[in-house]
């Protein structure tokens, strides 16, 4: 797994790292049981403060996606993300609201938006299938 951070992206660095790892989970670049790179290695590779990487790893632990073993490192759990169904739906609803707003602003009809979402899901499946 290779973690990259865009320094000119205004999104907080630790969240970019969290997203990078979540994406790696979604595409199968890391699998349950895999060991995550050390905090030091991620810091050097992404050119990011070690404390920031630490924070990202902590966040992933809170989300139930990662477990740290003192002295051994951090490992990907085989848990589903540690949020219940209601919370997960809330997150998706928020993204859907944004999507609806943008579509309305740019005058893209609903059927086209749905087609685009279907395509995105299909692409993601294809990436995951590639192991």
């Amino acid at each position, binding site marked *: 797994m290779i973690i990259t951070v865009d320094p*000119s992206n*205004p*999104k*907080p*660095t630790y969240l970019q790292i969290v997203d990078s790892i979540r994406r790696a989970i979604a595409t199968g670049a890391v699998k349950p049981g895999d060991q995550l790179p050390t905090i030091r290695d991620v*810091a050097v590779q992404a*050119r*990011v*403060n*070690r404390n920031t990487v630490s924070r990202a790893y902590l966040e992933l632990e809170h989300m139930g996606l990662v477990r740290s073993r003192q002295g051994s490192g951090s490992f990907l759990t085989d848990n589903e993300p540690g949020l219940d169904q209601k919370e997960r739906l809330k997150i998706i609803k928020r993204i859907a609201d944004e999507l609806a707003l943008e579509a309305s602003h740019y005058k893209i009809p609903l059927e086209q938006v749905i087609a685009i979402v279907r395509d995105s899901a299909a692409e993601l499946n294809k990436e995951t299938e590639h192991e």
Partner: protein
Amino acid sequence: MNEFAIVTEGLGKQFGKHWAVRNLNIQVPTGSVFGLLGPNGAGKSTTINMIMGLLPSTTGQMRVLGYDPAREDLEIRKRVGYVPEIQGFYDWMKINELVELVASYHNTWNWTLCSSLLAEFRLQGGAVIKNLSKGMRAKLSLLLALAFEPQMLVLDEPTGGLDPAARRNFIETILARFQEAGRTILISSHLVNEFSGLLDHVCFIREGNVELMTRLDDLHQRMKRVRLVFAEQAPGNLRIEQALVTRVNGREAMITCRDFDPQRTPEALTAQTGAVNVIVEDMTLEDIFVDLVGS
């Protein structure tokens, strides 16, 4: 260990009639990666020179790792790896000779680390310093600052003139070989976005004064750009109290807010301006630099 690696109180430096630094109060937490950011001539190098005990101050106090730069500069230089903007090497020396010389000043010199860095940087011991490229000089500077395992690293515009690959390697080396618990890094730069991943605290300096000093996370919460969309032409003479900078074009105005409050600012702006749509955007560190201290 002290809570702060560096504290300045009322620090000032006057050159003739001109105050390069005036009433500067900064606190660099121990273990932080602290960015001193500001335009050319803002007083960053002057401040760093005073902190390192290389330049006497006109007013104020400083404590660096618990020591007073005015009287205990030697103690500071034993514990702080300093990479200046322009390195005054003895150009006629070979790399080996300079390394031997600098090593002789430090009883904490780590020869294993030194050899390892020489090899990693591909610096040939027999090379004459005069013939080194900018990139190699920068690497040599960094090596000399790292090899005695200091408590703190102070870097003054460390990557000026380096190509993108060299700049990345420089940062990677610092992260790989220096950053660990308890060690502090002070970087002054205007290559802001590049260092934004590294920093956890920032201090913006303009004309010798602190404009803003805060944790990086807080900075991004407080400083936002807000787009105001109007039904008709945006008023050309828009005056908004919270706005640091206002840009107007057509139906849109974009303002930079210094103290954004998600609960209050959007409503306040709508009420004040009559805008029909208010969109909040994050700012990159470079955006913030330009709007806060850009000339």
